[in-house]
């Protein structure tokens, strides 16, 4: 970070008056929340989506690993054999019933890590307030992405344009399992509407912030504060 740290001032009896008056001219960092939102971190844990392959097939194979690993016991899955003439997923079985109870879910993302086919990922949407208990239970109808690969917009969910993108940020970030040789390489299947998504560059520096939506909230918000008060996080 460039620049010297802000100079420490000793406050005399009237020093407080000068400081408070200077604050009047300083820019505000407050975001007027319901009207505006701060950008969300790409790995934020919001509500889940059930992804589909690029050809429209569902990724879920009904293995119930997500339900098994869930510490809040909020996922209920029942698998069924694929009908041979019209298969729902590639392979033998598919998720016939898939329900997540959002009154119990703690958004730990263990289901995402357990999933062998990257079928369940978490979006960045957490601003939903249902008014009865049955709305809290999301079924396949709400969870599976639509024909464009976008999450379904439910009436009680507050979205802004762009917030429904990057639905698999956390999965893509954790996929290399910390192995350096896999850093920056895609090891996941394509998604309906997006194709194979770019990876986070990690520490190698091969990052593509626009493609991954990887922006530092601290940098964006910190730049609004003048350097005198310890702002300008980005090395400008």
């Amino acid at each position, binding site marked *: 970070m460039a620049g010297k740290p802000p100079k420490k001032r000793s406050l005399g009896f009237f020093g407080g008056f000068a400081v*408070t*008056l200077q*604050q009047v001219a*300083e820019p*505000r960092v407050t975001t007027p929340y319901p009207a505006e939102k701060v950008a969300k971190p790409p790995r934020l844990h919001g509500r889940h989506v059930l992804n589909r392959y690029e050809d429209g097939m569902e990724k879920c194979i009904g293995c119930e690993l997500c339900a098994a690993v869930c510490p809040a016991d909020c996922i209920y899955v029942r698998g069924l054999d694929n009908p041979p003439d019209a298969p729902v997923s590639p392979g033998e079985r598919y998720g016939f019933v898939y329900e997540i109870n959002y009154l119990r879910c703690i958004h730990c993302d263990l289901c995402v890590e357990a999933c062998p086919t990257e079928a369940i990922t978490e979006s960045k949407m957490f601003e939903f307030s249902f008014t009865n208990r049955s709305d809290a239970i999301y079924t396949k109808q709400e969870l599976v992405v639509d024909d464009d690969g976008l999450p379904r917009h439910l009436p009680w969910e507050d979205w802004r344009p762009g917030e429904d993108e990057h639905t698999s940020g956390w999965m893509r970030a954790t996929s290399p399992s910390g192995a350096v040789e896999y850093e920056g390489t895609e090891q996941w299947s394509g998604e309906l509407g997006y194709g194979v998504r770019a990876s986070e560059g990690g520490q190698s520096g091969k990052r593509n912030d626009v493609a991954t939506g990887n922006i530092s909230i601290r940098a964006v918000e910190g730049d609004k504060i003048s350097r005198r008060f310890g702002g300008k996080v980005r090395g400008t």
Partner: protein
Amino acid sequence: MPDPLFAHGVDLGAVIVVVVKVIVAFSVLLVSVMLAIWFERKVISDMQNRVGPNRAGPYGILQTLADGIKLFFKEDLLPDQADRFVFKLAPYLALLPALLIFTIVPVGGVVTIAHHVVELQVADPAMGILFLLALSSVSVYGTMLAGWSSGSKYPLLGSIRASAQMISYEAAMGLVVAMVIIVTHSLSTRTIVDSQAASFLHWNIFRLGILPFPLFLVAVTAELNRPPFDLAEGEQELVGGFHTEYSSVRFAMFYLAEFMNTITMSAVMVTLFFGGPDGPGFHFLRWLWPIVWFAGKTVVFLYVYVWIRAALPRLRYDQLMGVGWKVLIPFSLGWLLVVAAFRVSTIWGLAVFAGSAVAASGLWQAIRVGQARREALEEGSLGWRAQTAADAHLRAVPEPDGGG
């Protein structure tokens, strides 16, 4: 000088004028309290790098209205242990003085309406500024009785603090008011304002030599229980202070009284020291300019109050009493003597000034010596040196037996 409105006796027109003045003053004061609370919250959020209320109305200007409506619909609790009558009486005792003090403040010049000479202030009694001192004493009762009648410990302690503080600072405030009376030869607020009207060098702040004004400002801030003297409602140690047990409309009345007092006292300061409605006027709308000047000056002081609140940390209780008794009262008393002596002759004035300076330095020295002695005494009884010496015998290990 009596009110010129009643120069020809009391007729119907005069009565109508008085009623209209009362109604206008009351409603304007209530609306301005609403705006003052919003103003304070907005300004202090400016100074603390926040946004402040911004949801109700444009720039949150209706926030106070929303808060008021909320308070009116809340449950009105009456504690079991409370003295019911006094508990219900106290909010009115707090609110009424705030309303009444404003009646003697001249908000504008003198206009003639249908052959009636009307001073733009609700009342111009001959006792004038004494009314202010009397009513600010009454408002102590509101605070004191509220705390006492709540039947609870925190309010009681808060009210004891508040009333002690208000009574202490009233002395300094009264002395400064006495200085104003000495230079203007009148108790009437209208005459006080008129005597400052020639140019801004005639404002009392300059005529009295500037120093009394800061004394008055500090005394009034303490009198209003405003930060940094808001010890009556220290959240850390006293919860809400004297109005802890109050809720709903009764709490709203305390809150209203607090801010109404702030406005009223700003207006009083403008009246006593800054020429009231005095200021350059223009030929059109001749009656309007004094009112504009008065309002502008009052808003400046409201801003100053908020600024003080934002800038200064709270005083400890003993510091508060120390400032009141050891600084404000001696200073204002000395300055009162100097002002009075200058009225007699310049030589007397200079002599008394020199005498006061000597007395002040003597007092200062006495306070310092006293403080040093007390610290030495505390060091002697509680200091670690004395303590370890006194405890030496406890730590002495008994000699093991020689086994002879």
